[in-house]
């Protein structure tokens, strides 16, 4: 079953079939990316604007690369140079760019719900490239694609997500999708980094790093977003954090056979994850995530474009 919506705002509402449809479509684009001429014409003549109201070089470059390989005109807009700083509202900014006949907006925004808000008031397709603490669907899709490639399946796997769950839209998107796909999800981190009502996710919350790693097929480390801690102190020091919540080679031994380690990047080496894990090709699939990111974003842009034209 295909994906029939105008926008991609999050994974919470998506069916299993819809999620798998994105993953299988991405596989074809991955093959293309590995060929000599990495280009198709499926978005030829279309305009994709990367509207980034929050900095993220890697996500923007990934979307830009994907859009260009599909033959679209990809334009980058970032808030630092924007009218948003002159007091223009988000919707006015979007409507202005829409008037330039934009087909797809890739929207990154610091406020939760911003993508849905824009989607409700724009005829263009909206891809949520991360909104506040809410969702980051393409990152979760590329995580799932990477897991599927390495483990050969998704259903029945046990995944542990470790770190700052509260501030992580990546975790939220992954949790919803993984539960839909029949995966077991465990969470771990300092209690100060857990959402107060974490039980709404229906995941087991672990008490120790050992409990978290034990029995896991996939270990998903989150980045400690030191810039997001706005005054409160979720942990006393990075030294203590790495001791109790960091991933080392020794700890990985507790996992199920052939575990893989994911990280959305950029990495704080020695804080949430040690270099010996990052550099270990047996377990680390971090660069595969980056590679798959382009394929996933191509699949998403291509599918939304088809929906728009049909």
């Amino acid at each position, binding site marked *: 079953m295909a994906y029939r919506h105008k926008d991609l705002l999050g994974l919470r509402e998506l069916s299993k079939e819809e999620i798998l449809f994105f993953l299988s479509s991405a596989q074809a684009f991955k093959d293309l990316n590995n060929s000599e001429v990495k280009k198709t014409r499926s978005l030829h003549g279309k305009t994709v604007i990367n509207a980034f109201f929050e900095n993220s070089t890697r996500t923007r470059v990934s979307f830009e690369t994907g859009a260009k390989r599909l033959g679209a005109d990809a334009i980058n807009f970032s808030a630092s140079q924007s009218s948003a700083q002159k007091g223009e509202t988000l919707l006015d900014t979007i409507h202005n760019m829409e008037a330039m006949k934009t087909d797809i907006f890739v929207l990154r*925004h610091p406020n939760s719900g911003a993508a849905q808000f824009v989607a409700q008031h724009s005829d263009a397709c909206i891809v949520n490239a991360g909104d506040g603490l809410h969702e980051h669907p393409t990152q979760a899709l590329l995580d799932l694609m990477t897991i599927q490639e390495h483990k050969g399946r998704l259903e029945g796997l046990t995944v542990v997500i470790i770190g700052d769950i509260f501030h992580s839209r990546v975790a939220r998107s992954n949790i919803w999708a993984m539960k839909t796909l029949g995966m077991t999800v465990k969470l771990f981190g300092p209690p100060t980094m857990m959402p107060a009502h974490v039980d709404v996710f229906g995941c087991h919350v672990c008490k120790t790093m050992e409990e978290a790693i034990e029995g896991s097929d996939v270990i998903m480390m989150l980045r400690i977003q030191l810039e997001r801690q*706005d005054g409160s102190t979720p942990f006393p020091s990075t030294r203590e954090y790495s001791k109790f919540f960091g991933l080392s080679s020794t700890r990985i031994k507790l996992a199920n056979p052939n575990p893989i380690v994911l990280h959305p990047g950029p990495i704080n080496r020695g804080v949430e994850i040690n270099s010996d894990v990052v550099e270990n090709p047996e377990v680390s699939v971090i660069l595969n995530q980056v590679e798959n990111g382009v394929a996933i974003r191509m699949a998403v842009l291509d599918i939304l474009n088809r929906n728009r034209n049909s």
Partner: protein
Amino acid sequence: MKTLIKNGTIINADGRINANVVIEGETIVEITTEEVQADVVIDATGMLVMPGLIDMHVHFRDPGQEYKDDVISGSETAVAGGVTTCLPMANTTPINDNASITRAMIAKAKERGLIDLLPIGAVTQGFKGDRIVEMGDMIEAGAVAFSDDGLPVSSSTVMRAALEYSRGFNSFVISHSEDCSLCRHGVMNEGPTSTILGLKGMPSEKEEIAVARDMLLAKLTKGHIHIAHVSSAWSLKLIELARKEGVSITCEVAPHHFSFSDEHLLTYDTYFKMSPPLRSKCDVEAMKEGLRSGLVDVIATDHAPHHTDEKFVEFDKAPFGILGLQTLVPLTLALVKEGVITLERMVELTSANPAKILHLDNKGKIAKGMLADIAIIDPEMTYVYDEKLNKSKSKNSPLLNQTLTGAAVKTLKSGRVVFDFPNCL
């Protein structure tokens, strides 16, 4: 001039009676089952004749933000909701922290003459939280109580002084109960819904901590504390405890807090964004229980107009607050229909108790000798609350364009008809 309201059911806090109301000048002169000759005759067959509603918590944005509402449009909105007495909060620009602003507000309301406007003065000068205002002077000018509403009085010493000093003038302090040091940047109730939406939460403890402090300060000072817009179950538990121990404490609940839960926010609708925020379903039930049992003294709207442009933004950036005056009657009647409260209790919550708390001896009851402030209410009328009916300059109500049941069809202020529902009576 003589006015007769005939064939209605008069509802008072202590009972109901089918009788006619005779008004001469500003005053109710007789309650009778006889037909009386009058200059103006209002047939209230099938209607409820209630004392004019007293809303202890409104924001008229005047002076300073008259584009949202002003004393005139606020007055018109009030009487369209059956409300004849309003207490506007002091968070105007400039802040109502001195007698001259209080006087100006009252004068403007008198000029239009639709309602009695009883201003609430600030607790502290300029809302700065340190020096208390000239309460005596402001009371002389017409202020009735004191609150830095919108902001809590964070210093316990200052709150103590305010309670002690206001007690000397037989007045009281209204607490906007919030411990702002607990969870900054919160935009909705902290709960499963905020976790799903990725919005920063305000735990109900943020309110409860402040309620606990203020009830203890009322105990210390023997002053009277009134807790504004209670939203959480534990706040009510604390208030119940304080009252059992003889502390002079009263409280109000806003209609939205007994009508909606935080699950209404699942679509990021900014019209449901308010402070204190919509809480869990359990809290909503607790509000209803408090209204039923008698623990809650007052229903007050916290009518908070905002311009559409200000609400039409990302959720985090939208201001807190919704309209309330014209939806007070239908939302409260819904509780009556649900069997939570009786019509008598409705009058107690919306008129009799506010009159008692505010020492307004001539209001809050339909009886001989009382001021003829009267709301004639049709409990069964269904209608769409649309932009034509809405009298506020603002439109920020989640109930706009919804079908509602029950409304004030005629409102009398001091014996004069000041509102007539379109196409009714």
